[in-house]
Structure formats: C-alpha cells, structure tokens
C-alpha cells in the first residue's frame, strides 16, 4: 500500500491538512480499481487536532470537511461539511486506470466527486433514475397523499448542521426526529451505531434527513451536498430542513426517489419538548391499553419512540466518541448527587428493614397469639387491622427501594447489560446514574426478571412497571406523612400533661353517659311519649338493663386509677402513625360504649324472636305452615288444641309487641349513633391510607410527568412555509390522578343497599355495617 501525503491550501481558509491516500485493490474481480481516500486511520475524533501535520486550527472554518468515498460496500470514509470540498485531493499518479465505471475525479467540485460516489459504490450497476440511485434495503412505500408530519425536538433548533436521526412511522406518515448528528462523521460508524441502538431499544432508528442551520445565505452547493447525503443513507423520503439565520420560519422539503410522486404535499412541522416527552407517562383510556405499542394511537407511538430511545440520549458532548449529537441531554446527562447518595444508603437500610420486618412478622404469626380468645380480640380490634396493613406496606417498600424514582426504574429497565457492548465508550459500571449498581445489588425479583430483555409489549410493560414504581412511591410518602402527623399529635398530647387531662375527663364522661342511659330507661319504664306500655314486661326489661348499667359503672370505677397509665402507654403508639392513633380512638369508643352494644343485641334478639314467633303463629292462625325443605308456605291441618294454644300465644305476643319494639327502637338508634361516629373515623383512616400523595404532589410540581394527552398550539405562520405547531403535554386532572393511583385499602364499604338495611332493621337482624375484608360473616 502506497501512501502519499498531500497538503492543500484552501483559498480563503488557509487550511492545511494531511490526507493519506492509499490505494487498494477492489475485491470484485479486478473491476473498479480506483483511487479512494481512506481516512479512517487518520480519523480519531476531531479531525484537525489529531492529524499528524501541524494543522492550523485557529483558522479552521466552522465546518471543516472534505468529502471522500470508498468504493466498497462499507463506507468508511469521513463525511464532512462541503465547505472545503472544493479542495479535494487528487494525485495524478493515482488516477484510476482501466475502470470504466469510475470517473476521473480531480480537484474539482463536489459535483464530480458525488457523481463518482454515485456510480461506484456497488459492483452491481443499476442505471440512474431521476436524481440518483437507491441502494440498500427497500422500505415500505410511503403513503402518498397523506400530510407528512415531522416531529422536531425544540432543543435541536439551534444545533449546527448535520443529519437527522430518528424514527419513521410509515403508517402515519410521520417522522420523529430524535437527535442531530453533526459533521464530521463516518457513515459506516453512524450506521453501526444506529444498528446497536436499534438492537437495544427495539426501535427502528434510522437517518431521516438533513438539517441545515446556516448563518449566512443559502448556498447551492450545500443543498446539493445535503441532497447527495441521501444517497449514502438511503431513506425514503429524505427530509431536508433548513434554517436561515435567526428566522423563525424554516424550509422543509422532502426528496422523493420514486418517480411517481410528483405532487406537492403538505408538511407539518411539530415542535416538541424532548425532555418532557421523555419523562412523561401517557395515561391512555382503559380500552386502548390492551393494544400493542405499534398499533396504538399515534401519540403513544411517538411517546414510546422517545422513551425507548433512552440509550440514544446517554451520550453528551463531553464524550470522546466518533459521533457528535445534539439532543436534550447533549449538554450533560442529568443526574443528581442526592439521588445517588440515597441510592447508596438505601441498600443497607433496605436490608435492615427486611430483617426487622421478618422478625416482627415471625412474632405475629407465632402460635402463642393464635389461641382463641386472643385471635378473636385481634380480629375485632381495628388497630390490629391497621397495623397489619401498614406492615404489608412496609414489606412492599422494602422489597426494592430502588423503584422509588420512576425514571430511574425505567433507565434500569432499558439498560440491557449486554456484555462487551461499548456504545460510545459507555461501560456499565461507570455510568453516572449508577443504576447498574442498582441492577446488581437489588434484591427484588421484579427487577431481576424484567431486566434481561425488552419485549415488544414495551408499552404495556412500562405502564405496569411505572405503576408499580409509583405505587411504591405513594406508599412511602403516605407512610411518611402518616408518621409525621402521628408524631405531631404525640407532641401535642404529651405536652402540658394533656394525657392527665384526658384521663380525668374520661371517667366523668362515662359516668355522664351511664346516667343519661338510666334516665332514658326510667322514661321508658313510665309512659314514654304518651304510649301505654305493658307494665310487667316494661318493669322486667327496664330493671334488667338498669342492672347492666350498674355493673358497667362499677367496672369503670374499678379501672379508674389505671386509666391514666394505660392511656399514657397507648398514646405512645401514635408515633406509628396518625391512622393508628385514630384506630385506637375508634377502639376506645367501641370499648366505652360496649354496654350500648350489649343492649342493642339483647333488644334485637328479643324483638327478632318475637317477630319470628308472630309470623309463625300468624301462619298457624290461617292454617298454613312453613315448609323448610321446600322453602315455601304450605297448608297444614292442625289439631284443635294446637290451634287453641297457637292463637293464645299469638295474642300474647301481639300485645307485648309495642313494648319490645320500643326498647328495640331506642337501643338501635343509640347503636347507630355509635356506628356513625366510628364509621367517620374509619373513613378518615381510609382516606389517609389510600390517598396517593406522591402522585398528587407530582401532578402539582411536575405536571408533564402525568400526561393525559397532548395539546397543540399553532405558532406564527408564513405563506409558503410549512405549518408550525407546538406540541405540549396535557396533564392529567387531579381527579383522574387520584382515581388511577389510589392505594387499595382493607375495609370494604357496606355491601347492603338501603332497602336491605331497612329490611334487616325491621326484622330485627343484627347489622354490621363496617365489615372488614376477610372477616367471617355472622
């Protein structure tokens, strides 16, 4: 291989460079011997700095390049901006001989070199059609007649000239531009890079077109050069966007290689904020959530494209890679020191928490606590339910604390961990986000099984995964707020001897309630509301209940010296959370009004017995019977004495009904009052439990993260230029945020409708309006 060095001066720029010209035999049968410049050995990053010669870098023009080509199927030449293309190199000795397929090219213009390039690249010659040849994989025909939409990231508006890379969606005739690759670059490296990205991200990223940001007047040669780039990266259609100076109105045109598409089509230029689209999570309506990522709506396709191309955005301009890109992270990859520190600290914290939780759950599940009286007690107390619920939450959190941050989780997921993959010098261990550490040390099976590969159903998968991450974050924030409020309550309780005051007022309140009940019973024993009661039954029932109250009062008085101490220790548990404190309050109310519950049960049972007796005897009165086997009423012939006794009993029960009914009514009302108070407390507890505070705060502070859709704003227009739209994220409303991210709670609301409740009350059946999940039905 002979090399020779040439140096050339560019007229105005005084640019000196050295180029190695090497000569090599083409691989295909002796044809195509040609001169070509192989600059790959020279090229190591920035061109002038690494060249051997003392290149005068200070006078380097803005876009320094020369166009070279290699007549091989792999293009390993450097593509640079055409400013200096006029100074292309030849050496007379290296003019190709005997290769009719090549044109002699001289230090002529760009035109000739391009022609050379065009005719030479592959051994298979195809006649030129129209403006150029197409070599490469044939793409599906573009849908002509549909408006072409170009989604352009607003961060690339001020980028320097280059080529556009992104994703082309032929069904929707839209091109999503992800980044701009600047000159100089080597096409084969770009193609290889794109192939790698495609493998990792499972998104078909390709070169879409060219971007020209010229400060001065538009140059003809430049536009032709950019057109000709389309032949290297064959893409149909080849989109050319150009911006002049600081003008707001850009020129956008497409280059069609197919001869049948001659009509002028409309182009819509849609600007989007890449960072926001990247970080946002689209909440589609439920029925479209089942569709795959490809055939879902246009918007989700665009969001998915940007989100999946995370790996493309990991290189910034401070990297020493062969490819220089501009995208939203090109000024520096986003990372936060606090988040990193927290991640480092959370691993041992997580392990400690898991250990403690396993201890606690072991104690809870031990056989000691499973004996009958204790287990019955635990099931009745709502405090234990709440504590169990919170324990579950803690277990969910401690399983993987890494999943707190939604975006971090998505980064983890996208990082394939491919061995030996050196995409732009990125080694997994050194990544600033540190998620690779998370990958290796995370104990969660979820992450471990999700990471190895990305499936086609990325959309569904990422929605589920981010929902889990959000759920964990919500649980964590809810726990935190709960504990904070609980500690606040505690600090108020234990200040200025509030507990003592509470204990002091408790006994008089209990006494007062008991006295009120006694008055009530005396009233019932007399002539309540003018009704006349059956004296004997009245006295019996009244005395029975009065005796109960007397017992209860004595019991309370017996407990009175210990009340303060009990309250003091019980109040300490408020540090576990405000919900626990509220549950304890509800339990205390239940314990204090236990006698009302007892009276209700007595009254209800008595009344129920009476009603059933009455109905059965009424059937006897009419000569009918209830058939238990057939569950229906049958006729039956009774004996005379049966009928006689039956009728007597029926009369007695009927006339005693008002008394029993009144007692039942009074105690049921009291019981309902207590139930309503307890129900309100439980409602508050449920609210604190299920409110997704993290999501609400996220919606308030970073509203673009939770997207319900997009909205378009029409920007200033100019005739003859494409339509300019700005795509912004339409955030989810607060109502839908709460609905989507609600945490599940353990209590279920009354299943009975109002009519069945009334029926139960009328028949005297016992009602349990606040039944917890998992409790056996009575």
């Amino acid at each position, binding site marked *: 291989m002979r090399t020779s060095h040439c140096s050339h001066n560019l007229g105005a720029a005084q640019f000196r460079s050295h180029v190695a010209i090497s000569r090599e035999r083409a691989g295909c049968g002796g044809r195509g011997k040609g001169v070509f410049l192989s600059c790959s050995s020279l090229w190591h990053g920035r061109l002038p700095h690494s060249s051997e010669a003392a290149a005068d870098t200070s006078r380097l023009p803005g876009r320094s390049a020369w166009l070279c080509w290699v007549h091989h199927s792999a293009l390993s030449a450097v593509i640079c901006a055409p400013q200096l293309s006029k100074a292309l190199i030849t050496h007379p000795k290296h003019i190709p001989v005997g290769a009719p397929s090549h044109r002699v090219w001289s230090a002529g213009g760009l035109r000739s070199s391009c022609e050379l390039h065009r005719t030479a690249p592959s051994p298979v010659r195809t006649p030129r059609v129209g403006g150029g040849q197409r070599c490469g994989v044939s793409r599906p025909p573009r*849908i*002509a*007649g*549909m*408006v072409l*939409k170009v989604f352009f990231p607003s961060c690339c508006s001020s980028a320097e000239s280059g080529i556009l890379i992104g994703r082309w969606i032929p069904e929707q*005739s839209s091109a999503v531009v992800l980044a701009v690759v600047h000159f100089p670059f080597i096409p084969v490296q770009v193609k290889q890079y794109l192939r790698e990205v495609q493998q990792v991200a499972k998104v078909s990223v390709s070169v879409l077109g060219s971007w020209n940001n010229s400060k001065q007047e538009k140059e003809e040669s430049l536009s032709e050069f950019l057109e000709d780039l389309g032949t290297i990266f064959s893409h149909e259609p080849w989109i050319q966007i150009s911006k002049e100076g600081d003008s707001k109105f850009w020129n956008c045109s497409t280059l069609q290689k197919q001869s049948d598409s001659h009509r002028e089509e*409309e182009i*819509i230029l849609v600007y989007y904020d890449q960072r926001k689209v990247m970080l946002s999570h689209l909440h589609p309506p439920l*029925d*479209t959530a089942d*569709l795959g990522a490809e055939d879902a*709506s*246009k*918007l989700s396709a665009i969001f998915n494209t940007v989100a999946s191309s995370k790996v493309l955005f990991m290189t910034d301009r401070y990297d020493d890679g062969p490819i220089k890109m501009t995208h939203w992270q090109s000024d520096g990859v986003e990372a936060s020191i606090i988040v990193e520190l927290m991640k480092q600290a959370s691993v041992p914290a997580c392990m400690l928490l898991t250990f403690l939780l396993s201890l606690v759950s072991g104690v809870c599940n031990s056989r000691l606590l499973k004996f009958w009286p204790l287990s019955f007690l635990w099931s009745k107390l709502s405090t234990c339910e709440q504590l169990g619920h919170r324990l579950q939450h803690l277990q969910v959190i401690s399983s993987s604390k890494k999943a707190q941050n939604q975006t971090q989780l998505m980064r983890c997921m996208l990082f394939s961990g491919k061995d030996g993959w050196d995409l732009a010098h990125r080694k997994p261990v050194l990544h600033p986000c540190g998620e690779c550490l998370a990958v290796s040390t995370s104990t969660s099976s979820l992450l471990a099984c999700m990471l190895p590969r990305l499936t086609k159903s990325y959309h569904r998968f990422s929605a589920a995964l981010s929902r889990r991450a959000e759920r964990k974050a919500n649980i964590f924030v809810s726990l935190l707020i709960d504990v904070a409020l609980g500690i606040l309550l505690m600090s108020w309780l234990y200040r200025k001897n509030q507990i003592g005051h509470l204990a002091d007022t408790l006994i008089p309140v209990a006494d007062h309630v008991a006295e009120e009940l006694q008055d009530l019973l005396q009233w019932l024993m007399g002539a309540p509301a003018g009704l006349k009661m059956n004296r004997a039954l009245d006295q019996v029932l009244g005395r029975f209940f009065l005796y109960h109250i007397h017992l209860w009062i004595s019991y309370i008085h017996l407990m009175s010296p210990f009340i303060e101490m009990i309250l003091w220790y019980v109040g300490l548990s408020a540090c576990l959370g405000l919900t626990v404190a509220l549950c304890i309050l509800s339990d205390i109310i239940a314990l204090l009004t236990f006698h009302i519950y007892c009276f209700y049960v007595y009254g209800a049972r008595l009344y129920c017995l009476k009603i059933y007796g009455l109905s059965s005897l009424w059937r006897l009165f009419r000569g009918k019977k209830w058939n238990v086997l057939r569950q229906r009423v049958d006729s039956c012939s009774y004996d005379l004495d049966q009928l006689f006794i039956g009728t007597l009993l029926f009369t007695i029960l009927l006339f005693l009904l008002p008394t029993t009914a009144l007692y039942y009514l009074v105690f049921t009302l009291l019981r309902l009052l207590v139930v309503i108070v307890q129900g309100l407390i439980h409602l508050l507890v449920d609210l604190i439990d299920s409110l997704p505070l993290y999501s609400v705060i996220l919606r308030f502070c970073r509203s673009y993260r939770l997207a319900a*859709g*997009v*909205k*378009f704003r*029409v920007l200033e*227009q100019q005739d003859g230029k494409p*339509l300019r*739209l700005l795509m912004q994220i*339409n955030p989810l409303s607060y109502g839908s945020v709460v609905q989507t991210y609600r945490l599940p709670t353990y209590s279920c609301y009354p299943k009975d409708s109002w009519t069945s409740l009334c029926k139960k009350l009328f028949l005297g059946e016992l009602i349990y309006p606040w039944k917890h999940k998992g409790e056996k039905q009575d």
Partner: protein
Amino acid sequence: MEERRYRSASGAPLALRCRQHSASCRELAVRCPRLQLRSLSAVTSAVWLAAYGLFVLCQNSMVLSAAIFLTLIGLIIYLHFVKIDQESLLVIGSLGIQVTSSYASGKESTTFIEMSQVKDVVINEAIHMQKVIYYLCILLQDPQDPQGVSEVVPLFQSSKPRLDCLIEVYKSCHEILDQTKTASQSDGVK
C-alpha cells in the same frame, strides 16, 4: 380571519371567528358574552344586604366579614371554574381535532382527539324542557366495531350557538375532514 355575529340558544350575542392557518388546519372560536358588571354588582349587593340584615339581628360582626369572604371566594370560584369565555375548535387534518375551553380567569382546558378516533362530526337535536336545541358533536369510532360509535363528544356546550352558526362550523370542519378521509381512503385502495 373573519368574525361574524350570531346568537346563542338563549338569545345572548356570540361571535364566531374562523381562521385558516394552512390548507389542512383551521381554527374556529366562539366567544361568549363577558361577565356583566350589573349582574356582578346585583349579586354582591344582595349578599351584603342579607349579611347586614343578619348582623342587625344577631349583632355579631363575624357575619359581615364572613359575607365579604364568601363573596370573594365565590367570585374566584365562578371565574375559574364556571364562566367560560371562549370555546374553540382546532381542526388539523391528519392529526386530529382539538377542543379548548378558556375560562374567564385565563385557565384553559383542552382535549385532543386523534383523527383515527374521529368517525364524523354531526349536528344533533336535543329536546330540553320546552325547547329543541341543536348542538354539534364529534362521533368517536369504536375500535372493535367499524360501524359503531363508541362515544359522542358534544361541542360548544356553554355557549350553545344556534343552528346558523353551527352550520358554518360544520361546513368548515367537513371541508378538512373530507380531505383527510379521501386521502386515507385512496391510500387504502392503493
């Protein structure tokens, strides 16, 4: 850009503004009448008179401050959540239809419906009490059933323009929608 005057179903004056941004993009905005000063002052004076009457009865000055507070809060809530200033429809062929309502406090609530979901834009009749009113609505495609309609999205709900205004809007929309539909159908044939 032209602006024409119409009336709403209840007789209030409306203004329809039609703007053509490009061949396949059109914006139609209906402006509702602004909040009248006289109705505002009438409501405020009524509330304050009632509060003063209560004050005279119970001699508690809290009633007065509560009335002032209530009036302010009520006005803010009304301007931010209830009073709609302008309702607009942005039709972008091959992208979709965007419906925006701007409130008096400046808040804008937007919904964007993609073109693939839009089946048709029609004018429907509705019987409301003793009146028959016309309203424009977008019919959404049912993904499972190509002939079915999954949802009906009514437009211009708070301004309720009359039929002549609706016909204008309908014609404008259909010019662009028909363009899009024929383009996509011809591709399907191809």
